């Protein structure tokens, strides 16, 4: 007996019902599905948060605890964005909402799960801010960063007038910073391309690829904002007018003329020769005033951070050299400002570090070793994360190179974005920057790398094919999923706990000003207040060797009260980065407890403080 395709109650055939469903689907407003996906993503993301057990974090970082729901949520956000981006009508509010939600999911996840601000350096910076606010003075002999006090002075002022401690709002700084980066980036992207969808896509890629983690409460996070703002203003207002052909354009046209006519791409490139000069939207403003504003922003940049002004100078000079900027005298002004600041305002720092600073110049091998080689050590989990970060960065760079080639194929020689993506590599020849220079190269190039990565999916205006749209959805989802794995890969060490802070707060109550506070290593939430009143020393080499005798000997040489602070985050650092075998830390603490020269003065589950009993000088 044949089974009918229609139910007894309905006489409509199956195909008719399918048509009905398709009609209902078509009747939905085009924004409905992206909105539904975004809501689902938020629900999944929130549902995943309680499943994260921070006490179970291992050396792989947050990935060891992130539930599948979190990854599903990020993939849904990518899908929602792609649907909104490829819709017939572009809805800026929908795309902006997606960006804000993505920023919260990627940059604020630790706000929801951790009980204290993360990252030891945050506490150091908060300590500098507190010291300036309390004393109205700088302490360049204490730390070189006081010679570039712009960010700290600004934050100290804001802290005092709002009545809110910078440390208390510091967990929100990464998400706020990244959201602040987006509008100037939009201005920049729209100035180099008329394609709004490409600009939105590049913003999304920027958020999903910024795993570096330099956006916390720090001068570099603030100066990155100045960096993108200055470049955006320069490109927006001072690129040469459309149709102006510089020497690079004339060289390009000359080369194109020599491409045989029978090669198909010849015509496309030749046709677009004038369009090679950017064709973004025009801008009106009081331009002399804009130049003054750029100079003010750069002055703050110069006085706030050691590295960023050099990248701005390199970028500006490069754009002037290739005839893309009409402000030909600006690089000279910038160079003079940097030289003046470094010569007159950072004398304390230069006196002790000039030889060290110059020793890296031209030593690219040493810089590469410091940036990559020295990072390839530590525990197995940490090594896996380091390799993951290297591969992720390489994939992003290759994706950007592919996008640049696709743009070129369609006749777009993106000289401005292309050179600004490459300029940070010039820093490799100058400085190792404490082994961080490769990270900074990626960070400073990221706005432009994101542009080209996005262009890989969408090299020109017009409707995108289904294949490229699908590839874009997969690519964005993969990027968003990979980002927290790379960014929070050191979370076992980067996480600070309220118990650690409580112990250190109590130590500040107990210790007399002028005391020496020895620490297992510098990765701990100390120095967040009274930073100039105490002396701090890292005993990391002694800890790495589990050498309790030399540790006690070092402490006994202090001519003042001496404390030894050992915390959970220090233990994580020693095990992850230095390779201290599991169990060694606890054994060392147990041995320290037995030593008659010291006593335990404070203790909780995450921290222990010893005090040297006889602090009189015992040896020279």
């Amino acid at each position: 007996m044949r089974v009918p395709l229609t139910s007894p109650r309905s006489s409509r055939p199956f195909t008719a019902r399918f048509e009905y469903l398709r009609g209902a689907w078509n009747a939905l407003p085009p924004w409905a599905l992206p909105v539904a996906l975004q809501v689902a993503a938020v629900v999944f993301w929130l549902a995943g948060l309680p499943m994260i057990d921070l006490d179970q974090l291992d050396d792989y970082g947050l990935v060891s605890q992130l539930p599948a729901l979190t990854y599903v949520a990020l993939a849904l956000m990518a899908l929602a964005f792609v649907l909104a981006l490829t819709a017939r009508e572009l809805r800026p509010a929908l795309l902006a909402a997606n960006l804000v939600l993505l920023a919260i999911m990627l940059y604020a996840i630790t706000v929801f799960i951790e009980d204290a601000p993360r990252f030891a350096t945050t506490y150091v910076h908060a300590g500098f801010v507190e010291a300036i606010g309390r004393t109205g003075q700088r302490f360049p002999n204490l730390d070189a960063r006081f010679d570039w006090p712009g960010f700290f002075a600004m934050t100290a002022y804001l802290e005092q007038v709002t009545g809110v401690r910078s440390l208390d709002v510091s967990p929100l700084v990464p998400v706020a910073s990244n959201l602040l980066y987006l509008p100037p980036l939009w201005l920049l992207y729209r100035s180099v391309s008329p394609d709004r969808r490409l600009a939105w896509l590049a913003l999304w890629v920027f958020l999903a690829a910024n795993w570096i983690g330099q956006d916390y409460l720090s001068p570099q996070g603030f100066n990155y904002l100045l960096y993108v703002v200055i470049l955006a203003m320069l490109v927006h207002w001072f690129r040469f007018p459309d149709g102006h052909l510089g020497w690079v354009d004339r060289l390009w046209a000359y080369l194109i003329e020599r491409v045989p006519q029978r090669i198909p791409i010849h015509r496309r490139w030749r046709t677009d020769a004038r369009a090679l000069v950017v064709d973004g939207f025009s801008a009106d403003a009081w331009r002399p005033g804009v130049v003054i504003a750029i100079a003010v922003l750069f002055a703050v940049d110069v006085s706030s951070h050691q590295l960023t002004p050099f990248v701005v100078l390199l970028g500006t000079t490069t754009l002037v050299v290739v005839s893309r900027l009409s402000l030909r005298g600006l690089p000279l002004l910038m160079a003079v400002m940097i030289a003046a600041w470094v010569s007159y305002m950072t004398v304390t720092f230069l006196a002790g570090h000039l030889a060290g600073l110059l020793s890296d110049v031209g030593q690219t091998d040493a810089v590469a070793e410091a940036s990559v080689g020295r990072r390839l050590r530590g525990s197995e989990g940490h090594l896996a994360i380091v390799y993951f970060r290297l591969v992720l960065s390489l994939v992003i760079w290759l994706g950007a190179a592919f996008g640049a080639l696709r743009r070129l194929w369609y006749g777009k020689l993106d000289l401005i974005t292309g050179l600004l993506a490459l300029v940070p590599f010039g820093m490799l020849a100058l400085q190792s920057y404490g082994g961080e220079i490769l990270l900074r190269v990626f960070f400073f190039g990221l706005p432009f790398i994101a542009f080209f990565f996005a262009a890989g999916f969408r090299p020109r205006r017009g409707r995108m094919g289904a294949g490229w749209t699908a590839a874009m959805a997969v690519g964005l989802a993969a990027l968003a999923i990979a980002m927290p794995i790379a960014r929070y890969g050191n979370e076992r060490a980067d996480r600070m706990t309220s118990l650690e802070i409580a112990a250190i707060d109590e130590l500040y109550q107990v210790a007399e000003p002028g005391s020496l506070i020895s620490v297992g290593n510098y990765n701990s939430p100390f120095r967040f207040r009274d930073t100039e009143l105490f002396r701090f020393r890292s005993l990391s080499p002694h800890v790495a060797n589990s050498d309790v005798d030399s540790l006690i000997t070092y402490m006994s040489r202090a001519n003042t009260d001496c404390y030894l602070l050992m915390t959970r985050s220090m233990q994580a650092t020693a095990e992850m980065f230095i390779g201290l075998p599991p169990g060694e830390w606890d054994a060392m603490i147990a041995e320290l407890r037995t030593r008659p020269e010291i006593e335990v003065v404070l203790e909780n589950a995450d921290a222990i403080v010893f005090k040297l009993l006889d602090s009189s000088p015992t040896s020279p």
Partner: protein
Amino acid sequence: MRGRREPIWVAPLIALGICAFVLVAIDAGGPVRALLVAAFSLLGPGAGMARALHLRSPIEQLALVVPFSLACTAVVAMAALYMGWWSPLGIMGVLILGTIGLLMFGGRGPRVAAES
């Protein structure tokens, strides 16, 4: 002759600055002070600069007002620090006066081609 129309946000922004200054001067506590002072600190000086530069595009204003505000704050705070006159209230006073000046007189600078 057509009169110049002031943007509607100029007066509220000046009022916000004055309220914030009073709250800091009387050392008021609580979230209201934090919110008002933060709002002025993030928007006020930058809005003044944006007005002085004749930035009329919303995206230009959105992109630049907060960075301008932070940069102005950093400049004044650093000047106070180096001159040994550290005073949050004094810094705020300078910023408010500068903001009011830019908001009231900044729009009267040279006119750009688009306006003429």
